[in-house]
């Protein structure tokens, strides 16, 4: 990322930002996860959808997620400056002015919601608008700085995309789309608390009440374990309601088992160094875990379709 280094001597006077800086405002890595989960929600929904409309719907959900990322960076630029993980973001690094991020976020929010309404249906558009509002206002502006339960409730924002994808096809909500929501919702706390365990000095410096800083490491490790157990239990529910077949169930059981093993290992760590290492391992694993669960849903659907057609 060479451009990040040499842009330090080129402050954002009269608009010296690069295109890449604006792309960075949209949090492309978060966006890729959103695209993926929304895509799965869209494909799993009964009835099917015209591929063009499906593609436009995914684009709208991705842009909506990007817009909420820009709004988040606009509001959080003061604390982003303090944390090492976020200090090089476009606003704290001085490459983009705050107002520009706000404008970009608002314009993209409006366009993504309107286009989704025109392309798919207005229920899905309303759900997308609510998702952006939830992330930008309820999570970023309100919960993040005021309660250690910030990511539990804020995690809902990240859990909505598959529901929006589902709604783009069916025009509503169902038990299955709620399960997709629940899986991401319950996955978020152990994922971020594992990160917070080995980055807690960062959050502490920025004055963000993350669980390890407020309730202590032992309590955080316990909460991670509890959430992991509930999460793995929920991922097995699709097997009982005919939403996930044998392939999905096998993957969910195997990957879930390993998630529990890593959580227990983290829970049992005594010294600081071992805890950081276990936290890092769990954080990295949790990323692949979520991806695998959703890939398993897709693979399972593909197997079912092939089974029917052959």
């Amino acid at each position, binding site marked *: 990322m060479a451009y990040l280094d040499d842009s330090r*001597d*080129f*402050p954002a*006077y*009269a*608009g*010296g*930002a*690069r*295109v890449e800086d*604006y792309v960075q405002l949209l949090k492309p890595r978060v966006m890729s996860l959103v695209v993926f989960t929304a895509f799965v929600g869209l494909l799993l929904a009964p009835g099917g959808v*015209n591929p*063009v*409309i499906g593609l*436009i719907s995914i*684009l709208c959900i991705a842009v909506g997620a990007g817009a909420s990322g820009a709004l988040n960076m606009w509001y959080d630029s003061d604390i982003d400056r303090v944390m090492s993980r976020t200090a090089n973001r476009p606003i704290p690094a001085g490459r983009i002015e705050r107002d520009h991020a706000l404008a970009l976020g608002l314009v993209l929010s409006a*366009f993504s919601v309107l*286009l989704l309404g*025109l*392309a798919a249906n207005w229920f899905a558009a309303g759900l997308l608008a609510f998702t952006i509002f939830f992330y930008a206002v309820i999570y970023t502006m309100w919960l993040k700085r005021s309660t250690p339960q910030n990511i539990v409730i804020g995690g809902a924002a990240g859990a909505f995309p598959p529901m929006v994808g589902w709604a783009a096809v069916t025009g509503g909500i169902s038990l299955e789309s709620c399960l997709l929501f629940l899986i991401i919702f319950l996955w978020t706390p152990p994922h971020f608390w594992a990160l917070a365990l080995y980055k807690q000095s960062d959050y502490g410096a920025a004055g963000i009440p993350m669980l390890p800083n407020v309730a202590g490491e032992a309590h955080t490790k316990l909460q991670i374990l509890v959430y992991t157990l509930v999460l793995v239990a929920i991922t097995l529910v699709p097997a009982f309601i005919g939403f996930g077949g044998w392939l999905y169930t096998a993957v969910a059981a195997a990957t879930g088992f390993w998630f529990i093993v890593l959580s227990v290992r983290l829970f049992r760590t005594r010294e600081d160094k071992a805890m950081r290492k276990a936290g890092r391992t769990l954080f990295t694993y949790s990323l692949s875990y979520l991806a695998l669960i959703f890939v398993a849903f897709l693979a399972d659907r593909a197997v079912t379709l092939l089974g029917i057609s052959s």
Partner: protein
Amino acid sequence: MSLPTPQRDEEFFKRRRRRSIALALVLVGLVVILYVLTIVKMGPAVFDRAI
């Protein structure tokens, strides 16, 4: 906040040009999307009318 120099000006214009091109591409993309969406939504019936 450092003052602009000729080199900085050159870099500034280059960046502005790139931003303009990127914005133009986004707008063209939006037009194409709305066009294709119209055709998909209305189908061939969009051409099926008395002149």
